[in-house]
């Protein structure tokens, strides 16, 4: 019973790492910046597969988000500028995103999103790792 409870806990807090991301090139203060974290092994960019997700009011320029208390491992982050604050990444009739998007490792979209391998950042047992996500509109 005790063993099962221990197993259910996330990797020990004592050895947790942190992933910080600088979202750059934010065009304006409209709506929200939405940031989603995916762990290796989950389906990258698939709804419901996020390890964690957060949003804040948009501010032009650069905003920094941090995900503390992460188990060591490889993670990827996707960001979009939800300018109309509808909670969704809007796209046009041809399926091309019409709001600013960015990815950890400054990975770039190229007629489609980057792969997890392109965006993956390794978080160690301890300490903070920082990465960048310049938005492109």
């Amino acid at each position, binding site marked *: 019973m005790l063993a099962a409870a221990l197993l259910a806990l996330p990797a020990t807090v004592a050895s947790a790492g942190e992933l910080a991301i600088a979202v750059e090139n934010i065009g304006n203060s409209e709506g929200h910046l939405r940031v989603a974290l995916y762990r290796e092994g989950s389906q990258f960019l698939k709804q419901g597969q996020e390890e964690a997700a957060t949003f804040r009011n948009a501010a032009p320029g650069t905003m920094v988000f941090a995900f503390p208390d992460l188990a060591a491992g490889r993670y990827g982050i996707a960001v979009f500028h939800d300018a109309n604050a509808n909670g969704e990444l*809007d796209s*046009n*009739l*041809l*399926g*091309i*995103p*019409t709001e600013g*998007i960015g990815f950890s490792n400054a990975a*770039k*979209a*190229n*007629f489609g999103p980057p792969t997890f391998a392109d965006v993956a950042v390794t978080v160690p047992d301890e300490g903070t790792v920082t990465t960048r996500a310049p938005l*492109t*509109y």
Partner: protein
Amino acid sequence: MIDRRTFMTSLAVAGLGLTGISGAALADANAMRHRALNFQVGLRERPWLLGWQTLAAPTVSAGSAEIEVEGRIPPALNGDFCRNGPAGHEVFGHRYRHWFDGDGLVHRFRLADGAIRHEGRIIDTPKWRAEQAAVRPLYDAFDTDLEGASVSSLDSLNPGNISIIHHAGRLLALWEGGSAIELDPETLAFRDFVTLAPEARGMPFAAHPRLDRDGTLWSFGTAGFAGKIVLYRVNPNGSLHGIHLLDVAPTPMVHDFLITARHVIFILTPWRYDQAAGETFLEKHVWQPQAGGQALIIDKDDPSQRRIVELPPFWVYHFGNAWEDASGVIRFDYCRYADPSMTTEAFRQVMNGEAPTGTGASYRGARLDPAKGTFSESTLIDGPATEFPRVHPGRIGRRTDRTVMLLADPDAGVDHPLFATTAMVDRESGRIDAFVHGPTEIAEEAILVPADGDETDSGAGWVLQTVLDYAAARTRLKIFDASDLSSGPVAVATLPYALPLGLHGNFMKA
């Protein structure tokens, strides 16, 4: 312990990481620099390649004191003649691969009571501004692949470099792979991408919209990656009337289209998009003549009503005009290429300092019978290559017999292989009224400006066009009496500089 060699390698890697240039990107950049040298070498041997020299400065202007005018600019001809075309052929010494790659130069001749001034500027698109800030090319182009460049949106690459129109009080620079670009009508500066509706943001919008009799603007965009052609109907006040997505897969390259009183017509050639076929947008188009072509005829008021007529395989950039005759047969005129070799060969060769090869277009008059499903045509000009057919701008979709166009006639007696003759062709009478320019003048698109109030296709009015005199290193505006080209221009205005050869323009009466 770090030895010196490891240290040097780390430095090099760190340096590259800072600027974000990968090894492959360096190879591409080197190829672009090499091309710039090839061009300069070729220019010495073939001085007419001046037409593809990159514009040295992002803005040009000349007032009436600096513009030499021979003859007399008709005082009744008041307004703006605006043109567009790729002119930023090099980005900090990196030369693009294809004529259609470079940043657009929009320029305007303003004619007022017989006086003239000229202004031009490279469109300061987000793409242009980002590259100016980075001091190097950052983005892929129509036929230049830059390893490591990303495509987050079509407009991130948009150089706005093919045409320019006035509609609903707005001045619009047009590419065809992304949105229309609204310009400041006075300064010609970039204002914004035009978004007709939130769901249409960033979608392709053609360089050849067709202006209907009531001021409605019809346009389209091709999206080979999605297997679609997008049809736009824009109200006379600039708002969106409607968008229809047409399933056309595989999607051919489509540069121009046609309207009549009742129909919108797409000529679908067998030059088709295949995502896997190559690296650049141009390379992804595969010539498949065995597949033949098709005319897609769409009801203007109900785009779900469509007919298809099978066509022989050919490539076409430009149409003159289309209309329906009394029996419902669609008549149109166009410049027909046997294949797209001019685009895949000649327009790369001139960028690399080479003489162009490729097959030019013949001029045809066609009949398309939607009821019978038949197509027939006659060849009106063959031998000299033809291009840039233009008609009375107020009669799009209605009958016109007169089309002004350019000819490249090997027997014209000029010193270059490019367009040297401007011709008004009257299909009804069979008369061709032509003027051969000077031996070192390259003719650019000629447009018809009807006389004030002339709604008919009488031929009254003017023909305006620019020419590049590569020997003098000067661009000239020539104004002809539209009913008498062969007598020569009534006025020639010579700018104190040479501009790269452009593509399309239009006149907006004051």
